[in-house]
């Protein structure tokens, strides 16, 4: 009696867990495809805010080991890069970030470069990119958003 209920509980648990596992797997496949096609999001480079710096950065960074996706946004002064690292490469997260940072700084010495592996950075930049793509922002708002993200990233704990 008691044994049966505990067994049932275990089964229930396993069944709740399996979807998580498989969900993760499908996710991974998608990311893998992203990587293969290098289908990073490209944002148009015309006016009002030229994103060619960001686009170029993304093309360069995505080819590096361990990086599965990149988002980037730039203004005339700032360059924000959010990188996504998956699986066991995450153990090297700090080193990867440092390397990317120094590489980009070499590429664009005139920009103030902020690189982060933070989820928040990635998601916020994703939103910004989409807004830029739709032209639903202007230089002033963009700068405001970027400053906000930068201050968030500075916060510790």
């Amino acid at each position, binding site marked *: 009696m008691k044994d049966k209920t505990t067994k049932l509980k275990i089964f229930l648990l396993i069944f709740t867990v399996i979807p998580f*596992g498989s969900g993760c797997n499908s996710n991974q496949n998608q990311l893998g495809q992203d990587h293969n096609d290098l289908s990073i999001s490209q944002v148009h480079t015309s006016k009002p805010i030229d994103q060619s710096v960001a686009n170029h950065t993304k093309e360069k960074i995505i080819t590096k080991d361990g990086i599965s996706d990149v988002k980037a946004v730039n203004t005339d002064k700032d360059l924000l890069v959010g990188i996504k690292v998956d699986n066991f490469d995450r153990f090297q997260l*700090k080193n990867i970030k440092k390397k990317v940072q120094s590489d980009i700084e070499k590429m664009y010495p005139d920009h103030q470069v902020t690189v982060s592996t933070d989820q928040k950075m990635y998601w916020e930049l994703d939103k910004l990119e989409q807004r830029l793509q739709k032209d639903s922002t202007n230089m002033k708002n963009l700068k405001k958003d970027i400053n906000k993200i930068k201050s968030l990233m500075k916060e510790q704990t």
Partner: protein
Amino acid sequence: MIYFWAFVVGGLICVIGQIMFDVFKLTPGHTLSTLVVVGAILDGVGLYEPLIDFAGAGATVPITSFGNALVHGAMQEAEQHGLVGILTGVFEVTSAGISAAIIFGMLGSLIFKPKG
């Protein structure tokens, strides 16, 4: 993917705790105190941060992260204020967990009665 690793790593840390319960017959108090000290040592040698990067909540939710956070707070202050900073900085990072537990403990005692 982070969800998967959070589950696995968090689960494995709990398995270590269960082995301490069942095989070494330690009380929960002994087990949890040991895990906290282990977390602090792991952070001291710089291994806990990469684990958090890897497993996310799988490393921050188990009590081991408490030791990690205590060392972290102490080190942060120590970098700024030297040795005195160790004393003042210990609770810097962990204060949220402890104060949440105290506040909810007090609230709980106002609302609930033990059910038995």
